[in-house]
């Protein structure tokens, strides 16, 4: 079943075109990796789908999903006195923010345990290291029964050992709950292992389809330029 259809999507910032006539369809349950060189418009595409960027063209949602979003970098005032638990409580809203029930607090701890940061619940988010922050945000993205996950390089800043655990977890959760996921990643091994489809982006869509079919050495060279290395995982 179609979740969202994107047709002739263009985004212009000032006089620069950052996305140029993109058209693609996301089906429910798709795990789609978005790859491309720096400045290709990957983050911009996620932000456009979130509705934060004005665009031309058409984005048709066949159902309005609950979105779990993890930004590449989260810019905020580090003196903001918000605890990790409060960040999660904000997702729920209402009176539970002020007086959370024990069940809710244990749900938050459980969500944090996915990325092994349950001990950080009472810490201020401004006091966390960038790696801890990213783990907290991955857990945050998965909290509250999302139907669509938009993850912008979710493991940036996380050590290599934990990185694959995070992707395994994401794949497991996506399969278990039939979530749809759009994932920006620079790691081609991640794309081959975890994504059903890939969008090669360089302001326009250079390729779209199953990674093993569309990610040819020629395609990667034309996307990343001469000298791009190619390594295929045959799983």
């Amino acid at each position, binding site marked *: 079943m179609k979740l969202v259809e994107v047709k002739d999507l263009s985004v212009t910032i000032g006089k620069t075109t950052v996305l140029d006539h993109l058209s693609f369809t996301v089906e429910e349950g798709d795990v789609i990796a978005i790859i491309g060189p720096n400045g290709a418009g990957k983050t911009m595409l996620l932000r456009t789908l979130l509705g934060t960027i004005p665009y031309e063209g058409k984005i048709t949602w066949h159902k309005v999903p609950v979105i779990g979003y993890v930004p590449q970098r989260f810019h905020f005032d580090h*003196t903001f006195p918000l605890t990790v638990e409060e960040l999660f409580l904000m997702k729920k809203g209402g009176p539970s923010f002020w007086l959370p029930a024990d069940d809710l607090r244990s749900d938050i701890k459980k969500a944090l345990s996915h990325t092994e940061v349950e001990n950080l619940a009472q810490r201020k988010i401004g006091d966390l290291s960038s790696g801890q922050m990213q783990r907290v945000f991955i857990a945050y993205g998965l909290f509250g029964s999302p139907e669509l996950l938009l993850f912008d390089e979710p493991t940036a800043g996380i050590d290599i050992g934990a990185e694959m655990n995070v992707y395994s977890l994401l794949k497991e959760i996506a399969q278990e709950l039939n979530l749809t996921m759009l994932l920006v990643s620079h790691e081609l091994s991640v794309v081959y292992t975890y994504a059903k489809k890939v969008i090669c982006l360089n302001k326009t869509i250079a390729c779209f389809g199953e990674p093993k079919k569309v990610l040819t050495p020629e395609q990667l060279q034309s996307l990343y330029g001469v000298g791009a290395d190619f390594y295929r995982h045959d799983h």
Partner: protein
Amino acid sequence: MSVGVGVSLLGTFIILRRMALVGDALSHVALPGIALASIYKFNPFIGAVALLLFAVLAITFLERHSNLPIDALVGVFFTASLGIGALLSPSSESLLEALFGDIRDLNIIDAEIAVVVGVLVVVATLILFRDFTHLTLSRELAHSEGVAVERTELIFLFLLAIMIAIGIRIIGTLLIGALVIIPASVAKNISVSLRGMAVISVIVGIVTVVVGSTIAASFQLVPGPVITVVAAVFFLLSLLVRRS
């Protein structure tokens, strides 16, 4: 007291958004409205509210359609309004009166308006607490959580404008500025969570008004400055608590 609760709760977000002096600057935007009210003999409160709401709408519009941050836009409106207000005001005395109201001149109707506005600000801020927090933390995250960012921003500025209008005519720009900025700053110094900051800010707001008013009544002093000084003492104490 209700104004104290309202402004110190809203003040939490004003401090976190680093808009502490925006409220003070916005208060001058009301001047042309007050000057027009004095020329055409209508209630200055209406003139102040009308001009503030116009400014809030214009600032929101320009923030969306220009690259300028909100404090720069407030600065433009503030200086322009001060100029226009000074040209329109019949005398410098009325200009000063417009800028610095006095809590002692409070009549029953003014007091009732202050109470109603205070309660409305508290209720609106509590209902929108989550949205205001999202907006303050990250607009991008707010969007992803389904917060109507532009509308919430407008409501926030609207509440700020109403509060300033009350400040100008009823309890004075100095006092309203102090109650917006100082209790929330005290709370930020000593709190370990956002909920803690909001609660402490409100408590400090109430205690400041009660202690300041009592001291002022005992020594027959003007309440506004006394309340402001009491708030400043709380701020110094909070710095000591933070250091320890």
